[in-house]
């Protein structure tokens, strides 16, 4: 993974989040507090605007800078979670490199682990982790098996989609939706939806 890919991904994710505005917003209005899309949009726009500054950096330094910037830009619950994701990913990327798929999978797994730690949450609690944990597990295992590039990307997209849809039937125990109790059943978690959009976008980009 080169810095150039990170920059292309930032732009693609920005476009994808904007394209999914109405869906993410309506999910958040149903079981959140209505600020998730606004926060994601602000975060994406900030990273896109950092293009020139990031272009000169190594991948791990760029990830670290993105994490710090998101931490001080997004706010809410998403800021510390997404900021921690990138900063932990940067740390592992620096230690192990990002030249091979298993190395990228390890960095991604470290990022997901940081979200679990910061949010004190795990799979099954109707959060973005219901998308990120299965994706990370599949990524680590398929990359370790030396799976075909296209097949791996398809599998990750599928895991993300399934994880996102599965949040519909879960009772939330974390985040604002937790205050709704069983009233949140039947609604997809907005954080799971935006995570799925991001995973799908990055997978599509990696295919080209």
């Amino acid at each position: 993974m080169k810095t150039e890919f990170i920059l292309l991904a930032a732009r693609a994710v920005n476009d994808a989040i904007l394209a999914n505005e109405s869906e993410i917003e309506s999910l958040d209005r149903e079981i959140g507090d209505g600020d998730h899309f606004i926060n994601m949009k602000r975060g994406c726009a900030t990273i896109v605007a950092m293009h020139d500054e990031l272009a000169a950096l190594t991948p791990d330094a760029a990830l670290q800078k993105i994490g710090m910037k998101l931490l001080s830009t997004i706010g809410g619950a998403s800021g510390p979670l997404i900021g921690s994701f990138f900063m932990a990913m940067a740390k592992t990327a620096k230690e192990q490199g990002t030249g091979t798929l298993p190395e990228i999978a390890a960095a991604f797994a470290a990022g997901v682990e940081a979200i679990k730690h910061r949010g004190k949450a795990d799979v099954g609690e109707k959060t973005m982790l219901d998308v990120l944990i299965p994706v990370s597990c599949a990524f680590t295992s398929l990359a370790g098996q030396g799976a075909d590039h296209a097949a791996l990307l398809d599998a990750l997209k599928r895991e993300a989609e399934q994880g996102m849809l599965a949040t519909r039937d879960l009772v939330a125990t974390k985040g604002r939706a937790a205050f709704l109790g069983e009233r949140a059943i039947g609604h997809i978690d907005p954080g799971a939806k935006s995570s799925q959009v991001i995973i799908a976008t990055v997978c599509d980009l990696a295919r080209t």
Partner: protein
Amino acid sequence: MKKFINKIDDLLVESLSGFAAAHHDLVSLHLDPNYLTRAQKATNKVALISGGGSGHEPLHSGFIGYGMLDAACPGHVFTSPTPDQMVAAAEAVENGKGVLFIVKNYAGDVMNFEMAAEMLSCEHATVLTSDDVAVVNSTYTTGRRGVAGTVIVEKVVGSLAETGASLAACKALGDKVNSRMASMGVALTSCTVPAAGRPTFDIETHELEMGVGIHGEPGRRREPMRSADEIVADLVAAILEDLQPARGSEVLLLVNGFTGTPLMELYVLYNSAAKLLEQRGLNITRSLVGDYTTSLEMAGASITVCLLDDEIRRHWDAPVHTAALRWGK
């Protein structure tokens, strides 16, 4: 949406600038990262810092000044501030006795203040407020929400801090007040987050949301509109069920408006709640009625009951000089 706005992106900074200009004798505004401090830095006291999403004014910036906060960190509307704001505010107001964060229990606020605390080099502690009894399921680790009772914590701990008390003593008093108060709110209309441009939730003219949160997030149930007495009876019942006060207990009764409900109606709520508390044998010796923890333009209100003791009453009565609360000085 019809609001006084120039550009939505400028709303927060323009509002903060107006607040700082109107109260320049009390507060100073620092931008990028955004935080407000007392105009004159205090010395030889624990530095009290709070913060949270904007849209709840006068919470928290309105409570900066003698007897309450040293600094406040405003986030975007209904969005927690970020750790860099808290760290900068702490560096600006810390004066050798440590920093106490007062944080409303909401996931975003908790995580951002937690990361800020990890970055601080000075001594620090956090009081987490969780007075809202509307959502009581304790298996949710996010727990109860911190709402209007936060004002009582800021006032009482603020007074103690002025005496030069230690960080541990301030934290202990904050935790004690939090454990002795309970709140619940009700919404009659929604609020509209400016950047979203439309109401946060749909509610019919004949409905109310019982147990609403201060961001318009749902509470216990949606139900038909009823009389003020009937609504207050439900709020007070939920509060007393949680507090289980002994007959004869001395209490502070706070009726807090969310902005859209006129003071005239807030006093109707106070009248009704006071009768119920007195019927339960409680002795209301202190009161506060007004808009202190708001939800943009939402119509509705919350009721908070705080069990007083000599220590809490003394610090509640102590002089305070802030933009939103001022007495005795």
